[in-house]
């Protein structure tokens, strides 16, 4: 039996929640929200630290508080929620197969779909550490869930590999709960985490941050017993004389997040290099018309506020798609990341929309730089806009709002790049 719905949203993290609310606001009445976990809120429910919402709510919240503001509204709305429901497959003609313990197999068909499945963590294999395979090696996010939700401490003497925000936050979390955190290792010459997290999560607790260091070997037959640390040079060559053995029973890996691509890939969506998720236009519509993607499934965000915002963009797109009120541009504009930039979202601009004045772009730079400009050029190489920045880092997503009036009719390509400050400028800020 196949049930039909206007809009099906997959994943009830901040992206799915915000999308559901916005779609309802845009007049869509038949919305289904599918979530495999037993609660709404996604990854936010385990991010119990503060640091969320400054942008969106203008106040500093913890992850669960941020989530609950949306959850309360969704519960009051007409959105049909199904928890503990795992989506197994989506076909390119928008048929969805899911399973849960109440109904068993569920078959749905949707007019529009919003993908909001979030991301997953890279594991040890992604970085190939030699040695044994004992218990006690887990990703930082798993440890976070263990500690903050399930109520278990995975170990007592901890080394953390990776100094992104999750690694830093978990260093503090484990220290607070009574574990000994022996150090955080980072292979890059800089931490990709926020300065604030470095200070408040490591320095406060006297936890050393070892830059240009990595784990070289893992010891232990049953449970982890020790790891070898090693320093690397600027070309990531290991320096054998710096090898040092550290006893620990737990190794937390915080070595990167990747969009949860399984369903996207199975439905035949092209994945974009750089951002890692599906290719999308400015409405966050994928290559399959009527299928949208937002939040971490599209690009790994560091600020949830942007996730909510992006979800709203996708939801409005989906609502307009359902109502068939979208107008294509004559020519699609392809957005290219240029020098100094890893990726830009959206990957292209497809629609005409008189009501909007600005198109917001998210981008990640490839390394920290000071006093630069983010420059947008058209296919002829002429600069159409430029945005000054005092400092950019790969750990913090940049956004720029491009006024639509600056894009001339015939444009079919825009290139974003980083240029040094002080170069002659002819666009406007």
């Amino acid at each position, binding site marked *: 039996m196949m049930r039909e719905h206007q809009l099906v949203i997959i994943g009830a993290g901040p992206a799915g929640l915000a999308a559901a609310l916005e779609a309802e606001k845009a007049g869509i009445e038949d919305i289904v929200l599918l979530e495999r976990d037993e609660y709404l809120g996604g990854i936010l429910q385990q991010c119990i630290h503060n640091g969320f919402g400054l942008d969106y709510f203008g106040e500093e919240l913890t992850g669960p508080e941020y989530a609950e503001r949306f959850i309360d509204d969704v519960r009051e709305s007409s959105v049909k929620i199904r928890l503990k429901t*795992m989506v197994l497959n989506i076909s390119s003609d928008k048929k969805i*197969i899911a399973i*849960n*313990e109440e109904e068993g197999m569920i078959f749905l068909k949707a007019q529009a779909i919003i993908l909001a499945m979030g991301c997953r963590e890279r594991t040890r*294999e992604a970085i190939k550490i030699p040695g044994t395979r004992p218990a006690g090696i*887990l990703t930082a996010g798993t440890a976070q869930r263990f500690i903050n939700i399930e109520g278990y401490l995975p170990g007592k003497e901890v080394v953390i590999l990776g100094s992104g925000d999750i690694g830093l936050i978990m260093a503090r979390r484990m220290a607070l709960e009574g574990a000994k955190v022996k150090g955080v290792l980072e292979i890059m010459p800089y931490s990709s985490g926020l300065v604030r997290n470095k200070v408040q999560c490591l320095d406060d*607790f*006297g936890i050393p941050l070892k830059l240009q260091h990595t784990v070289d070997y*893992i010891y232990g037959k049953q449970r982890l017993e020790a790891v070898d640390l090693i320093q690397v040079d600027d070309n990531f060559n290991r320096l054998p004389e710096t090898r040092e053995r550290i006893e620990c029973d737990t190794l937390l890996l915080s070595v990167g997040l990747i969009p949860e691509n399984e369903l996207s890939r199975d439905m035949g969506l092209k994945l974009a290099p750089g951002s890692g998720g599906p290719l999308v236009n400015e409405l966050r519509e994928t290559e399959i018309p009527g299928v949208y993607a937002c939040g971490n499934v599209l690009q790994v965000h560091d600020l949830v506020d942007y996730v909510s915002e992006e979800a709203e963009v996708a939801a409005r797109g989906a609502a307009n798609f359902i109502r068939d009120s979208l107008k294509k541009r004559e020519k699609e504009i392809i957005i290219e990341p240029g020098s100094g930039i890893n990726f830009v979202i959206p990957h292209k601009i497809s629609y005409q929309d008189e009501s909007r004045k600005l198109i917001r772009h998210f981008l990640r730079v490839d390394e920290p730089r000071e006093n630069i400009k983010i420059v947008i050029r058209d296919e002829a190489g002429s600069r159409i806009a430029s945005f000054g920045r005092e400092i950019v880092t790969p750990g913090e997503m940049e956004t720029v709002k491009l006024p639509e009036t600056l894009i001339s009719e015939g444009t079919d390509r825009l290139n974003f790049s980083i240029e040094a400050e002080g170069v002659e400028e002819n666009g406007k800020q």
Partner: protein
Amino acid sequence: MKAEYDVIIIGGGVVGTAIARELSRYQLKICLLEKDADVATGTSKANSGIIHAGYNAAKETLKSRLNIESNPQFDRIARDLKVPFQRIGSLVVAFAKEDISRLKKEKQVGLDKGITGLEILNQEELRQKEPEIHPEARAALLAPTAGIISPYLLTIAQAENAVKNGAEIRLKSEAVDIKCKSGAVSAVVTRDGSELNSRVMINAAGLYADEIAALVGENYEITPRKGEYNLFDKEYGDLVNHVIFPMPSEESKGILITPTVEGNLLLGPNSNPVEDKEDLAVTRDGLEEIWEGGRSLYPDLPADGVIASFAGLRASLPGDDFKIEALEEPVGFIDVAGIQSPGLSSAPAIATMVRDILADIAPALPEKLALREADFDPELKKLPSFQDYKERLNKWQDIFLQNPDYGEIICRCEHVTRGEIVAELKKEFTSATLNGIKRRTRAGGGRCQGGFCGPRIAEIIAEKLGISPLEVTKSGPGSEILWARVKDVKPDRDLVYGLGDNK
């Protein structure tokens, strides 16, 4: 505690369990001892999983004979035991001109020994079968009877079937001593001090067979030789269609590439002697070596497609052949040692050979032993597995309707339901560890390597065993995955530094 057995088998690898299953056809009291928390934790878990056709055993050896004898039996075994097995065929690939004549010789040796279907493929035929292979590959020897199997599922299934037919399996029971009485074996002592009486001891202890043999005064040495592997994501499982070997060297069959029955791609092994029989560490150099080997067969191997690396240890004896024989003294002791490659492929014939040896020595035992056939059920029932329903998901609904546990996905990567895990834990023979469950159901074996489902499976195991999740292990005592309950541990008062002044 005293127990009476006719036969005690030491070692729960593919060999020990094959013997247990074979002997459970007879009216015998059988006990298999395995030191670890599951069977198939030694060499039988980490190998290439290939059922060789047999041609590569060019010399007149026991292993060559047993391999060739066993190969045709695998269809039946796999069907009976519900073990995934595919006869995908193997290719030995030649690059140099000289190698082609070697292949021709190999082919002739194989045909003489009764291996069927051997065929030399020219470059074009090879390319047709393996489009992505190295462009300079010139020719190949095709052995269509070669196949792939899950070595640990085979071992587990043999164990289950033996138990079903009355054998007993004791996990976490390491044999530490063997007692003899008037020139015959009489009892095994295990690490926990139990003494188990038996008239026959079968030494199938893999890497440790020499240590078991030493307990009855035998003197030989088993040296471990390491083989390392990379396992690739399922996305790349169809890069190759056969088991692909390079030209073999004197010591080894070389670094091969093969699909696995689970649909992944496997690359390895190298072959390096090591000191320690527990040294299963993967080394940087080793991984580089197999990577080089892989690239010389398939230049486009995806470097970022690797989802796991592991190593296995070959148990080699001087002379490099199997040693399967009964001792004259003490009576009742049978060695099944030096079972290196192709031990997996030879297990069925090894088991029947051991049965024959047992029949031979039975009359000489202090108390007579007769091999009388028993009621034997060669089959295992297949439990519902969501994986098998991928193409007909609406049919899963029938299974769900019988038990809603089959609607709750526990492992998100491999799509394993609670029902499957619970059913596994209810079996007469199982291993209630995370690894035990992972191998039997695939739960926790996917891309996230148990990141999400690990705690959930731990809870199911804890509930089933009536223990705390803190006591659940990955692979037996000492491998607990959790340390404490949050809040039972308190941090120091002066946890936080007064003034951040860190460099």
